[in-house]
C-alpha cells in the first residue's frame, strides 16, 4: 500500500511494541506533551480491544488526574505506570537522552525546551519506548552533550525500568540494558543496514538477518483513520488535520 503515511506506519510499529509479549504487560500507559504519534499508537491498542488504561496528560476534557500532574509522578513512583514514551533532541548509543540542549550547559548552542519529567520517568516506569522521527547523525549521537535522563545506572541505584526500543523514521532499534547498547531490529521500507549506519552517530549491533518493518494492516489503518483520529482531535488538532485530513468541529 503506497498511501500509508509515515506517521501511520510509526503508530502501528509503536502499537506492536506496546503489545510485545516479551515486555512487562502494559496495563497503564501515560502519554506526555507533544506526542501525537505515541498517543495514536496507544489509542490503536485500545481500539483493538486490549484492556489498557491510558492517561493522557494533555487531554483537556476528561483529564485523568484530579490532583494535578503530580499524580502522574506519584503513580510512577509507586510502579503503577507500566509504559511511558520519551524522545530527545539527542539520543546516544547508551540510550542517554538530552532534552536540555546542545553545547555548554544549559544548552548555549541550541536550547531545547527542557527535560520535563524524563530524569524521573525513565528510571521509574516499568519500561520506556523511545521515539524520535528524525533519524540523523545530529540526533542519534555517540554521546549526548548533556544528559537529561540516563539510559542505565550504576549497580545499587534503584531503577525500575529501561528503554525497550528506539523507533525512528527509518528503523526500530532494540535496547539491551545489560550491555547498554542498541541492536537493529527492523528496517522501514527503503532502508538498508548501510543506510542506517550512515544516518546513525552511534555504534549498534546488527543481527545476521534484519527484517523489514511490517506495514500497518488494513484493519490498523482503518482504526487509525477513524476511531483513533476521533479521540485525538481535541488534543492534537494540527496533527489530525495534517495526517488524517480531519478538522475538529469549530
Amino acid at each position: 500500500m503506497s498511501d500509508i503515511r509515515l506517521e501511520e506506519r510509526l503508530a502501528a510499529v509503536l502499537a506492536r511494541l506496546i503489545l510485545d509479549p516479551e515486555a512487562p504487560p502494559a496495563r497503564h500507559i501515560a502519554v506526555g506533551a507533544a506526542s501525537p504519534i505515541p498517543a495514536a499508537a496507544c489509542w490503536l491498542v485500545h481500539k483493538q480491544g486490549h484492556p489498557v488504561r491510558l492517561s493522557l496528560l494533555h487531554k483537556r476534557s476528561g483529564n485523568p488526574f484530579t490532583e494535578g500532574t503530580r499524580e502522574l509522578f506519584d503513580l510512577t513512583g509507586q510502579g503503577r505506570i507500566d509504559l511511558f514514551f520519551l524522545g530527545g533532541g539527542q539520543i546516544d548509543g547508551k540510550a542517554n537522552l538530552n532534552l536540555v540542549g546542545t553545547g555548554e550547559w544549559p544548552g548555549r548552542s541550541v536550547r531545547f525546551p527542557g527535560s520535563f519529567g524524563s530524569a524521573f520517568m525513565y528510571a521509574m516506569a516499568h519500561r520506556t519506548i523511545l521515539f524520535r522521527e528524525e533519524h540523523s547523525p545530529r540526533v542519534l549521537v555517540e554521546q549526548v552533550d548533556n544528559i537529561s535522563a540516563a539510559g542505565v545506572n550504576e549497580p545499587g541505584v534503584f531503577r525500575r525500568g529501561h528503554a525497550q526500543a528506539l523507533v525512528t523514521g527509518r528503523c526500530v532499534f532494540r535496547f539491551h540494558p545489560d550491555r547498554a547498547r542498541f541492536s537493529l531490529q527492523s528496517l522501514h521500507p527503503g532502508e538498508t543496514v548501510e543506510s542506517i549506519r550512515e544516518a546513525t552517530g552511534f555504534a549498534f549491533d546488527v543481527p545476521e538477518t534484519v527484517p523489514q518493518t511490517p506495514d500497518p494492516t488494513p484493519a490498523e489503518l482503518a482504526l487509525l483513520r477513524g476511531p483513533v483520529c476521533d479521540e485525538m482531535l481535541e488534543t492534537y488538532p494540527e496533527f489530525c488535520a495534517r495526517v488524517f485530513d480531519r478538522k475538529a468541529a469549530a
Partner: protein
Amino acid sequence: MTSPISLEAMAASVPDGALLALPPDNSLPSVALAKALVRRGARGLRLLGVPVAGFAADMLIGAGCVAEIETSAVSLGEAGFAPRFSAAVKAGTIRVRDCTCPAVHTMLQAAEKGVPFMPLRGLIGSDILAHRPDWKVVPNPYEGTGEDPIVLLPALQPDVAIFHAVMADAEGNVWLGRRRECATIAHASKRALVTVERVVPGNFLEDERLAAGTISATYVTDIAIAERGAHPVALLDEYGFDAAYVSDYARMARTEAGFAEWLAREVTAPQAAQRAVAAE
C-alpha cells in the same frame, strides 16, 4: 475577604525580584496578570514553572522582566520552542535552573508540609542533578549502611503564586476544578494572587460538589477580575486554546524586533491596556 482589586493594582503588588510560581499552559496560567506585569515594567523576576512554563513565561522573558527561571521546560506546545526563552539562553541574559517535573512538585510539597526537604527517586545519572548543588544524594537511612542512594530536595517557598481560576465567591474562595497543582502552589507560597473570570455570591465550601475543587480563602491573598484571563490558553470547559494567536506570537517572537512589535500591539499599546481595564 476584601473586594477584588484591579489587575494593575495586583501587578503593582508584585515586587521586582520576587520568586513567582506559575502553572503551565494546560493548568490555568494568568496570562492577564503576566501582561499587566509587563505593563508595570517588572524587573528581575524569578520564575518557577510548576512544573513547566509556557506562553506567559516566554512573554515575560522577552519583555525583560525575568532574571532567572527554574523549570522543567519552557515550551509553546504544538507551536514549538519558546522563542524568547531560547534567545535569552543563547545570549546568556537569563539564569536557568533546570529541574525535572516531579522535583518541582516535591519541593513545593515539602514547603506545604513545612519540612526542610523531601526525597525523590530517579534523577541519579542525570546532568540536571549534577548542576543542582542544592540537591543532595544520601544513602537511604532505612537500608544497610551506604546502600540505596536517593536524592533529597530542599523545600521551595515561592514569594507569590499566580494563576487564573474560573470564579471566586463572596468569601474569597477560589474554584479551579481538577487543576489542583494550583492548590499546591497556593499552599506552598507566601502569597497567592488569583485572577478570575467572575465573582459569584455564596460560599463554595458550603457546596459539596464545588468544595473539592476549591482553594480556601486562607491561601488567597488577592483576587482580580480578568475576563478571558487565561487567553490564549484554554480555561477548563470555559474556552479553548487559541492556536492561531499562539502561532502568530511564535512567528513574530522569532526575532527581537518582531517580538517588540507584538508586545506593542498586544500588551503595552494604550488600546491593549484599555482592553484589559475594560475587561475588569
